[in-house]
């Protein structure tokens, strides 16, 4: 099963939340009325899909029902499913782009979303695939962040390049790339300090790290993964926008999907920014990482067709 397939199991909470609630709303009704549409909108908003996207989805459902002259509430769910699928699907490229040697993955995000943990898990996945992985401890700001990454390095059995706390992250990155080139590593994963996307200066620092990567290895970073906490609300869109402007974001990692958060923000991000979700975090263990799959995500929410 690898890291596919785990998604569905971990999204069982989401399924209860969305599918179950839609069914409950429909239950016992003979016709589709305004109240039902409102209920639908409410369920979506409560899943963090966002007001605008929720309204758009409900309007879409309404249009289909109207066109087909349907009045049967049980039709609502499959149509909503289809509309959601349309929004979430697309030119989905979840496989990580790791073209050359070394390929570089830069991991960014606000404080506490799960960057370091995700890197530990990802290092594990990639080295299981037979890749030689090197971690760059470029979070030199948060207390003991380097130690944290080292523990993950040991767990995944991969090497960590570090300097002391407070040193220049760009310098750590430079060192890591030199080591990777001279010692023939396949993948370098760069951990960065969490920062709020609104802090101009910290974002400048991140850009500098980005530039150093590109200067040392043409085409690097090959992936910039933005780590988002699934419990985050509409602010995730602002995060995706501003990290995107600073360093470009090639994919999203949605963490903490093992909570009760509905992950609805994925839908809003897809609609507004068209950034693919590539990975999801489903726990604190080293194996709790899954590739994102749009169809599976929808199946997980609505049950299989």
């Amino acid at each position, binding site marked *: 099963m690898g890291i596919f397939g785990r998604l569905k199991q971990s999204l069982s909470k989401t399924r209860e939340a969305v599918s179950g609630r839609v069914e409950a709303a429909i239950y016992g009704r003979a016709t589709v009325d305004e109240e039902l549409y409102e209920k639908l909108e*409410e369920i979506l908003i409560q899943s963090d899909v966002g007001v605008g996207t929720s309204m758009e989805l409900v309007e879409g459902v309404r249009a289909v029902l109207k066109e087909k002259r349907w009045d049967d509430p049980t039709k609502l769910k499959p149509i909503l499913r289809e509309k959601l699928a349309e929004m979430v699907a697309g030119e989905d490229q979840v496989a990580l782009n790791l073209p050359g040697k070394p390929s570089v993955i830069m991991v960014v995000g606000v404080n506490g979303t799960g960057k370091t943990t995700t890197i530990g898990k990802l290092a594990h996945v990639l080295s299981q695939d037979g890749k030689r992985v090197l971690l760059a401890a470029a979070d030199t700001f948060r*207390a003991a962040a380097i130690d*944290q990454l080292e523990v993950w390095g040991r767990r995944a059995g991969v090497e960590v390049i570090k300097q002391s706390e407070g040193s220049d992250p760009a310098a750590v990155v430079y060192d890591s790339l030199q080591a990777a080139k001279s010692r023939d590593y396949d993948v370098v994963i760069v951990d960065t300090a969490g920062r709020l996307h609104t802090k101009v200066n910290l974002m400048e620092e991140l850009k500098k790290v980005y530039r150093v990567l590109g200067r040392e290895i043409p085409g690097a970073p090959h992936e910039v993964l933005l780590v988002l906490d699934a*419990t985050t609300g509409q602010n995730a869109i602002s995060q995706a926008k501003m990290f995107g402007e600073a360093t470009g974001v090639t994919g999203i990692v949605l963490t*903490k999907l093992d909570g009760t958060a509905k992950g609805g923000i994925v839908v809003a991000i897809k609609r507004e920014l068209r950034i693919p979700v590539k990975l999801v975090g489903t726990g604190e263990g080293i194996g709790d990482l899954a590739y994102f799959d749009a169809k599976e995500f929808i199946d997980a929410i609505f049950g299989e067709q």
Partner: protein
Amino acid sequence: MAFQSLSERLQETFKKLKGKGRLTEADVNEALREVRLALLEADVNFKVVKEFVNSVRAKAVGDEVLTSLTPAQHVVKIVRDELASLMGGQNAKIQIAHKPPTVIMMVGLQGSGKTTTSAKLANHFKAQGRRSLLVAGDIYRPAAIKQLQVLGDKLDVPVFQMGEQKPPAIARAALESARRNGQDLVIIDTAGRLHINDELMQELEQIKAGVEPHEILLVVDAMTGQDAVAVADTFHKRLGLSGVVLTKLDGDTRGGAALSVRQVTGCPIKFAGIGEKLDALEPFHPDRMADRILGMGDVLTLIEKAQATMDADEAKRLQEKLKSADFDLNDFLSQLRQFKKMGPIDQVMGMIPGFDKMSKKMKGQMDFDEKDLVFAEAIINSMNARERANPEIMDGSRRKRVARGSGTSVQEVNRLLKQFEQTRKLVRQFSDWEKTAKKGGKKRRLPKFPFM
């Protein structure tokens, strides 16, 4: 800035309303529809929004409002008061035990900011002369103990740890140790956990039973979405929370969690985290926050901050300088240093009435931090006396020379000069504001700021 987009939407709505003069019930309903959308878009919990809008409506469509001469102001006032009461009304303080030590237990989801907040609290109480013991109760996350130790070292506050032993045992032993050593505050950091993880929630119950904390504070990320309420509710039901700390309020969150959590749990928000530094924690004042959201500024907090951090003599000197109209780059540097002590700059600025009406561009130019301060110092030191006194003469070639001399870039020099200009402008705006406030006969005089 936190709440900014909510704030903008609400103010726009009310501007429309004010433009109308007399109001009908339909006008109020239309405005409330927009308020509802603004709140939902700000991640305020769905049910909370419903209740909020209903209670505003009940008060706003009465005869008293509709027949008043300034009905729109009435409505704004109602919204302001309801917002404040939604967030809990007045600031709620930490309960200090009659018999020390006071025990505070920190709980919350992963990544919400418990460890940093624990250290910030220790720092907060240190300033009040209390001696804290920080307790490393997160035995699960790699290097969490080390993180707390590093923070404790920075603050010179002792950290109690027992490696990876069971957290309830660690907590009890820590309390014993605090009693022996005469520490009057015990702050217990715990591992982040999901509210649905029964085993780990039981662990918290055991810690609670073992040390009977005076305060159990839930740490909530201000950017949390609709789930904030489920999380807070579950933690509250299992542990009986005494308060909430909102973190990351220095970002651009629209503030949904801030507006929802108190309503659902009944627990007051006691503190807000407004930055990564250990002094970036402030008591949460719901009433002042409501003012900020509605663009009324928060002069009270500004004054408190200024009084707590500014060097009075230096402030006076700068003030004289400014009045004499030869406020120059040297003064600017000194002012920057003073200002910086008050906290994250955008936070401070956000409290100035009218600041939110400044353009984004202007605000962007005013965004500076520690590193800029170093740059600013280098740049200003590379200027000659005449340039410092008359920044107007800084033409292209002078700028180039200064950039080279200070090891910065022309862009950096440009940015600094712009910031200087903006500050001068703001200072004037600010003193104008003070004058009108005085003219209006209000007693609300501002303290002596260095930039006034």
